[in-house]
């Protein structure tokens, strides 16, 4: 399959004005403002093939939303290039956005006062969706996401989960080839999350939609994605499949230790650094230990270890 997205060395730095404390300092800053440079995205490259479904994860402030903004054409990179389906998003925005669907989970794009269905109707005109396509899509989506009950309610009266489903449908009614979902499961309960995951998978499988989404929920990633990109402080630290990452970090062992007083503790060891026999030896010399159990690393745990810097990433762990 050919690439639909090609991102080369994009950077995005923000200039943040330093707020000075105190009267004189703030007066001085009127004349001589000090800026701090925040490297939101710092040299990221990747390619994505048609029909791929990619999870984008990273800590708060890692640069996910900034990257999605550059991919969807509403932010210029400071340097580097983005090429998507023949377009340069930020330069050919008006043409380009017809072909994509974007949801920012933290910000609704629906009309607050109108019933959900009216916001959908508006999409029909905005994207000039043929009547037949619109009706088919609407029927299908409403069924898949179980929305019959609240489609005639004004958006301001919807619950977060209902609103999010509305936002997702609104972004997909024009059958975009490429969809960006920035935290589509934020703040949702387990059932609503599951619905959205199923829906994302359905769109990818049945409509061959290429999907990139960001999340803080590893379950989303495990259940939906084939591919995972992890970014940290504006840099890409992992790019590969979930199976690969589990495999790659199979040297990381989590050992749950139970002490005599009944308390438990999770310890992380890298058996490439300390072989298992040494680990055991070390543990057995601690007298107060009652029991131990070795746990295979869960994706959650691996990601947490990466975020916390317990796992060192170097060039050859980047999955490429």
């Amino acid at each position, binding site marked *: 399959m050919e690439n639909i997205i090609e991102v080369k060395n994009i950077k995005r730095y923000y200039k943040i004005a330093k707020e000075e404390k105190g009267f004189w300092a703030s007066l001085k800053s009127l004349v001589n403002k000090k800026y701090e440079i925040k490297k939101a995205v710092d040299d990221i490259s990747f390619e994505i093939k048609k029909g791929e479904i990619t999870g984008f994860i990273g800590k708060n402030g890692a640069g996910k939303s*900034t990257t999605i903004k550059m991919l969807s054409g509403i932010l210029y990179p400071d340097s580097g290039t983005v090429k998507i389906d023949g377009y340069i998003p930020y330069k050919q925005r008006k043409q380009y956005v017809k072909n994509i669907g974007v949801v920012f989970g933290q910000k609704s794009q629906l009309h607050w*006062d109108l019933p959900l269905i009216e916001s959908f109707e508006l999409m029909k005109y*905005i994207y000039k969706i043929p009547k037949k396509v619109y009706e088919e899509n609407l029927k299908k989506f409403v069924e898949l996401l179980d929305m019959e009950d609240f489609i005639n309610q004004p958006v301001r009266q919807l619950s977060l989960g209902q609103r999010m489903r509305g936002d997702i449908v609104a972004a997909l009614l024009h059958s975009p080839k490429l969809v960006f979902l920035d935290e589509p499961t934020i703040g949702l309960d387990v059932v609503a999350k599951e619905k959205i995951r199923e829906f994302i998978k359905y769109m990818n499988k049945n409509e061959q939609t290429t999907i990139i989404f960001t999340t803080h929920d590893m379950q989303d990633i495990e259940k939906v994605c084939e591919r995972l990109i992890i970014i940290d402080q504006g840099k890409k630290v992992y790019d590969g499949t979930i199976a690969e990452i589990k495999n790659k970090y199979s040297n990381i062992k989590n050992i749950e230790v139970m002490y005599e007083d009944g308390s438990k503790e999770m310890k992380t060891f890298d058996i490439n650094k300390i072989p298992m026999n040494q680990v055991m030896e070390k543990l057995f010399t601690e007298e107060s230990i009652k029991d131990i159990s070795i746990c295979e690393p869960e994706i959650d745990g691996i990601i947490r270890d990466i975020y916390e810097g317990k796992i060192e990433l170097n060039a050859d762990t980047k999955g490429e």
Partner: protein
Amino acid sequence: MRTYVEFAIKKFQNKMAYRLEFFMGIVNTIITIVVYLCIYKALYEGKAEVDGISYAMTATSFVISLGLSNAFHFNEMFIQDKIHDGSITNEFLKPVNFVFRLLWENIGEGLFRVVFNFLPAVVFACFYTKLCAPYSMGNFIIMLISVALGYLVLWLLSLIIQVLSFWLFSVWGIMTIKNVIVNILSGVFLPLWFMPDIIKKIIVFTPFESIYFTPIRIYLGEVTGMEMLSKLSLQLMWIGILGGMAGVLWSKGVKKLVVQGG
């Protein structure tokens, strides 16, 4: 075009959701009409004319300009709010021109106010006092065109200030000053006939006369024939000038947002 008309229709429906606001609006308009007409009546002290203008003309002028100023009312903090909560960028994700969309939404809202606020108030005012009929059918039709152009002049003035919120943290103050100036210099509360001569001379060089006073004078037949066309072209000129300014500011603002990231 269809897309944008749809924005107007949706906004119209949107407004229908607030029925209480609509009733309060009518009450408010009627009270304002009664109060001001009493003041004008007192000012006329039973005289037939003041400065060659009859009471009926003054009353008509007031009712029309009040109605129009109500219809021309829209959320002037819209762009600022969108910039503050960051949702302005969402607007660029749609293949529609945001400024045109805003215009049509505001028109939808304006039409709502004309139908549900202005027309009831006019009916009331007709019973309450004697108003002038349109000078002629031709004048009435030209006046409708002039109203639309006047709307654009006012809308563009507001847009220019709204767009400043790309650079200023709050445009509320400037907006308030603009509204005070517009209300005085465009003759909403005191028709421009009664302004001191110096101010009248200054106003000629500003867009304010084009907003309400030009349509009113056409309606009353103070301006007729070819002179109407020259008044319309003056309105068009202001639309050109203000539209150009708004356009430049808007594209600079958008550039600031997408290039510098807000």
